[in-house]
């Protein structure tokens, strides 16, 4: 098995290099034979990487502890699902998983593009160059098939050291693969952009071809980040979902640039503008996803999530440098194909709102990158290693996020080219008035937090504009078809899924902002309670009923039974637990959360006091936090709606947005047959 795995990786590496050479030569000389040959090499790489993965997963499931990887990432008593998940639980295995995802994407791309055109060979070459790099790492630097017994006198390893108990959670099974599907997926639109430049194709065919692909990848990346946040909230015991940790930041960066890309491609499709910008954005997205992998794996930036230090770092630096150089060369040498076809006509226009959106996303991205890499930057330039904390990130990102939220409300309703004062009044007067009334009402009710007032006001503003778009469009359909209003709204969404799916994504973002804003009103208290004693937090009374020991074969620990009531009315009980895992001896706390739409009550059992008489409980009230998870679901749903082909694309002119914007982003785009 181990030989099969190692050899597969080695041959796969050679074949991916061959595929790069053959497809590049084939594209250059227009040699269909070479191109076809590289296509088959892509399939072969997929087969080989799949075989290697099967060998590793087989070893994990069979408890074959001769494998160093299996011994340090699994143990006998682990549930089968976690044994399988150990495939991506450690450095070497997760690189293999990365390779497998990329090989699968590449095989899918090749399978979907059977026509011989100028683009395909360069797409293949870019994908396989990336694949070659990761297979190089997997085959020569971090092989998952290193054996323990060879030459070391070990004949039997009775049991592995297991998976970190914190990671034994359902979200941890799916969070890494979902995130990887995002990270790796950005390679595909990047490959099409590179191909478009390499083949000197003017226009935006590459954007049409990769539109759905980019949305799917963006959804995976966003979903992966949110799953990680949900896991942190439910497991880590401090009640946070985001800590501006380097590895968290690394996953956010490509998602931000991809968000900017998804918006600004509409400018290129509709108006032929921002061509360079779009190529730059997708290249940044790809490079940042590689950088994120590098930060996670090399140990250069200390993080709670990172794998240990490893020699992978220098390889990543070389690859990033090469990719950056090739991209810059391609863009500079193809500038004549990237000339804009139109000019900006007014600051108050759709174009301008897209430009601002892109600008802010990129600035935010840069600020986060700077803060994340600051320990490295400061060491190189001043010799002193320094770091910055969450307040830095919050100070930049909260106002920037609120400005983006404002654009979410304004952008989709402002006309292309130039918006008239009359259309602005028609579209924004009522939403703005409603937002101001809400903010004033909240202020009168005692809310003094400035960002919270702005945020809630903006949330209402955006919801109102989205709602009025749906309402107006649905009414127009209703006038013709005599359906009821909800059915007309569904019909409206079906006629231009991209636009209305986008609105639903925006609505999801608004709901998430409601949740984020709730954190301005968090309450917390650390209390030491004897059994039967009481404490108060907010409008909750907490009574410690008992502390009981628990024990099973996996762990031993104590459960605190806490009865919760509100103004004397009992609300049930919560059972936070403290566990000591027998294998590895790690203690973990299992928090208890009473979730609600208005607020969560969150209890962490920190342990017993010095004299063993009292239980130390950390109690938190997190207002509105559930809306983050609800918003996430809405966001993913909206993204899925964007993927559905629009019905009757010629009929989507339902009059939304008035005469100035006869119809929104790109039915032109959807009308063309595309393969992706």
């Amino acid at each position, binding site marked *: 098995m181990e030989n099969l795995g190692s050899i597969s990786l080695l041959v796969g590496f050679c074949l991916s290099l061959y595929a790069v050479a053959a497809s590049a030569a084939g594209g250059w000389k227009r040699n269909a034979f070479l191109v076809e040959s590289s296509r088959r090499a892509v399939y072969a790489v997929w087969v080989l990487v799949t075989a290697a993965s099967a060998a590793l997963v087989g070893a994990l499931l069979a408890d074959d502890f001769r494998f160093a990887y299996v011994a*340090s990432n699994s143990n006998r008593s682990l549930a089968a699902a976690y044994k399988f998940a150990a495939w991506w639980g450690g450095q070497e295995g997760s690189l293999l998983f990365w390779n497998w995802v990329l090989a699968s994407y590449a095989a899918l791309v090749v399978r979907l593009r059977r026509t011989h055109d100028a683009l395909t060979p360069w797409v293949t070459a870019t994908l396989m160059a990336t694949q070659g790099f990761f297979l190089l790492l997997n085959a020569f630097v971090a092989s998952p098939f290193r054996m323990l017994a060879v030459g070391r006198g070990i004949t039997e390893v009775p049991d592995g050291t297991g998976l970190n108990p914190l990671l034994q959670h359902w979200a941890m099974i799916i969070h890494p693969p979902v995130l990887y599907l995002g990270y790796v997926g950005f390679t595909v639109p990047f490959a099409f952009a590179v191909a478009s430049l390499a083949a000197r194709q003017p226009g935006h065919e590459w954007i049409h071809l990769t539109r759905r692909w980019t949305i799917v990848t963006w959804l995976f990346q966003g979903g992966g980040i949110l799953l990680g946040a949900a896991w942190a909230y439910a497991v880590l015991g401090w009640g946070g979902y985001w800590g501006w940790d380097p590895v968290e930041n690394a996953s956010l960066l490509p998602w931000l640039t991809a968000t900017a890309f998804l918006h600004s491609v509409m400018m290129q499709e509709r108006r032929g503008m921002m061509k360079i910008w779009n190529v730059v954005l997708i290249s940044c997205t790809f490079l940042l996803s590689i950088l994120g992998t590098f930060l996670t794996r090399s140990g250069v930036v200390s993080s*709670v999530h990172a794998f240990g230090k490893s020699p992978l770092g220098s390889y990543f630096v070389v690859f990033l440098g090469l990719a950056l150089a090739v991209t810059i060369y391609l863009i500079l040498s193809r500038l004549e194909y990237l000339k804009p076809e139109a000019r900006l006509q007014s600051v108050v226009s759709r174009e301008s709102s897209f430009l601002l959106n892109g600008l802010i996303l990129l600035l935010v991205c840069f600020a986060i990158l700077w803060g994340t890499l600051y320990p490295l930057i400061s060491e190189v330039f001043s010799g002193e290693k*320094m*770091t910055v904390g969450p307040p*830095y990130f919050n100070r930049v990102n909260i106002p920037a996020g609120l400005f983006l939220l404002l654009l979410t409300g304004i952008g989709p309703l402002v006309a292309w080219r130039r918006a008239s004062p009359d259309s602005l009044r028609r579209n924004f007067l009522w939403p703005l008035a409603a937002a101001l009334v809400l903010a004033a009402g909240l202020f009168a009710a005692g809310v003094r937090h400035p960002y919270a007032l702005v945020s809630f006001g903006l949330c209402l503003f955006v919801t109102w504009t989205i709602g009025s778009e749906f309402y107006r469009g649905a009414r127009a359909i209703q006038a013709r078809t005599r359906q009821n209003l909800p059915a007309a709204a569904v019909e409206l969404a079906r006629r231009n899924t991209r636009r209305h799916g986008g609105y639903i994504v925006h609505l999801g973002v608004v709901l998430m902002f409601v949740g984020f804003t709730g954190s301005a009103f968090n309450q917390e208290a*650390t209390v030491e309670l004897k059994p039967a004693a009481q404490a108060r937090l907010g409008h909750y009374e907490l009574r410690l009923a008992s502390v009981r020991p628990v024990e099973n074969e996996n762990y031993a620990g104590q459960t605190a039974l806490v009865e919760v009531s509100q103004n004397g009315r009992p609300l049930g009980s919560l059972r936070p637990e403290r566990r000591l895992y027998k294998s590895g001896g*790690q203690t973990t706390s299992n928090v208890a959360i009473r979730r609600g739409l208005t607020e969560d009550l969150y209890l962490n059992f920190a342990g017993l006091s010095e004299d063993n008489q009292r239980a130390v409980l950390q109690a938190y009230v997190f207002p509105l936090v559930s809306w983050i998870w609800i918003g996430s679901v809405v966001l993913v749903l909206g993204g899925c709606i964007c993927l559905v082909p629009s019905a009757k694309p010629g009929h989507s002119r339902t009059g939304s947005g008035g005469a100035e914007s006869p119809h929104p982003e790109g039915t032109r785009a959807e009308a063309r047959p595309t393969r992706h």
Partner: protein
Amino acid sequence: MKVYWRFAALTVVIVGTLAWLAAGGFNETKTYYKTIAELDQMGASAIGKRLRVAGDVEAGSIARAGGGVRFVLRQEQRTLRVVYRGTAPLPDTFRDGAQAIADGRMGSDGVFQATKIQAKCASKYEAEPGRPPGAPVRRAGL
């Protein structure tokens, strides 16, 4: 061209505002990485600065007292007394022998006042049998 000038002005305002916010946040949270040896050398000049110190938690040194947690960090034979009074619970990985990172300020009494503790239990499995020297130690995944 007027449009471009206006847009450029808007861009400058946005970039400027964000840069100003960033600079403020930066100076407010800028923290120096120091080894325990460097801290000893700095002497009184270390007092009051925001610092980050890493080391191994000395076995048996963790004590919970008066709402705070006291422990000793060790790095290459040098030790540092630390007290943590933060509100966030200590990470589950924080225990005897763990690699810990403490963020905080140096107190005038020579005790490091930590406001944030991060910990990794890198040495967790090293004493176990059957594990060859140099085998990779993996901790938390992505």
